[in-house]
């Protein structure tokens, strides 16, 4: 039992060390040449534009469901007109960043792990190195930059679409006036909420992509290994998103409230 826990701790320490080393290598690649600009543009398109549909749909239905659910609760206090406040605060501070990040984990995290994992098991990563290309510069850094830059953009879009979805339900199901809905939103949102909602996706985007790259590059064992890596990237990425969200929230509450 003791030996088992020792072994688990060693593996965990080793994995953490290697993960940090990968991040360090990516940082060095960021500040030293060469930079593969066209790969960065490609990844911005893949991660940003490619994820737009899923993020828009998620945001729309989340905002609509949130308005519908909170309308029922607010009715008990005769507070149906402030449904906009609840929708906007929830979307901007919590649901927008977290749900966007979870969607990105499913779409981008799995894709990165599968792609890099396949390249590892078919020797394409070794071929890159043999041809004089650093895989961290060519494959990891563009994905990290795209993840960190596009997660906030997608989150802002999800926030707006979610609030719009809430308006559809508020207007046509809860019969709340359009002017009242939108004015309650602007009244309820403070700069601290917006800072919080914008800070989270930078952290979450970074975590999703770095975990997926790390897991993908450490793939072993052929196609079965690729499947395993994909699963780990999604599971570990999702848990990391939820955990990081908690810690960033705590930090933001400490700093701004």
């Amino acid at each position, binding site marked *: 039992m003791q030996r088992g826990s020792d072994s688990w701790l060693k593996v965990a320490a080793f994995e953490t060390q290697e993960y940090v080393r990968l991040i360090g290598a990516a940082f060095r690649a960021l500040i030293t040449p060469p930079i593969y600009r066209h790969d960065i543009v490609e990844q911005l398109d893949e991660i940003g534009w490619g994820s737009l549909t899923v993020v828009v749909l998620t945001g729309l239905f989340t905002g609509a469901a949130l308005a519908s659910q909170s309308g029922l609760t607010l009715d008990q206090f005769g507070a149906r007109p402030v449904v906009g406040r609840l929708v906007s605060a929830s979307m901007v501070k919590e649901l927008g960043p977290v749900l966007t990040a979870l969607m990105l984990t499913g779409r981008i995290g799995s894709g990165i792990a599968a792609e890099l994992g396949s390249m590892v098991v078919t020797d*394409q990563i*070794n071929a890159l190195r043999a041809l004089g290309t650093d895989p961290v510069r060519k494959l990891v850094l563009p994905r990290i930059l795209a993840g960190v830059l596009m997660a906030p953009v997608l989150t802002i879009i999800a926030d707006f679409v979610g609030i719009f979805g809430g308006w559809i339900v508020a207007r046509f199901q809860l019969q709340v006036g359009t002017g009242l809905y939108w004015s309650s939103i602007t009244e309820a949102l403070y700069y601290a909420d917006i800072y919080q909602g914008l800070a989270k996706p930078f952290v979450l985007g970074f975590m999703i992509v770095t975990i997926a790259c790390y897991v993908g590059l450490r793939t072993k064992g052929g196609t079965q290994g690729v499947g395993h890596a994909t699963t780990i990237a999604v599971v570990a990425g999702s848990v990391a998103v939820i955990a990081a969200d908690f810690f960033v929230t705590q930090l933001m509450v400490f700093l701004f409230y």
Partner: protein
Amino acid sequence: MFRAPSRPNGGGNGPVVLFDHVQLAFDENVVLKDVSFTLEKGRTKIILGASGSGKSTILKIITGLLRCDGGAVVVNGGRVDQLSERELMAVRGDLGMIFQEGALFDSLTVRENVGYKLYEETKLPLAQVDRRVEEVLGFMGLSEHIDKMPSDLSGGQRRRVAIARAMAFKPSILLYDEATTGLDPITATTVDDEIIKLRDIEGVSSIVVTHQLRDAFYVATNMAVRGRNGSVEIVGATPEKADETEFIMLKDGLILFEGNAEELRQSNDPYLKLFLS
């Protein structure tokens, strides 16, 4: 170890690859116990051995993809076993490696695969890179496949594209890792012919890792010559030319045999006899 008598270096300029008492183990599994050999400029070493005997490992150590635990590895006169990944990039500029199954980049076309290093890692004008890619693919007889994706090629074509990719930047050393494994004999012969042409026409030094005896002996006992009309023909090797290709047999992390094709055939070592039977 049985070592055939060494021959004088016919026209070479010293070793381009030197392995000096190299050792490597993965945890408890000792892959290379004590391996020493040299590859002279313009010559070929064919490394034979059973699966898991460390043949591919030797190639990965030469390119710096793996680091040995002990001994020294010298490429083109400089030690590579202690270099950082960044320093190794310069060494790899003169090394081309053909991986098992080709390891082509499956999201790139044949043109982009073959010209990868020139497009991505040099500042050569695009037109010049395009010309070089077309020239190389023409040399390999693959011109009509230039815009195809790797998935649209046959196994033999993929290996030949991999060779084209490795030779596009004109390295002086080519490392072939099981370049013909899994191919039918006719397709394998086309790949062998390319290995011979690169050695004899382009003057490339090469290390060929294989367990396909037919291909190993074909490469060792044939040579490429230019015909009167400029075309390249594969003919039987002269005794002097055949002497320029040496075999190494690996067993249990050690070199069991080193010598030319004739010496390998005549060896009385029971393991070699079993391997050749």
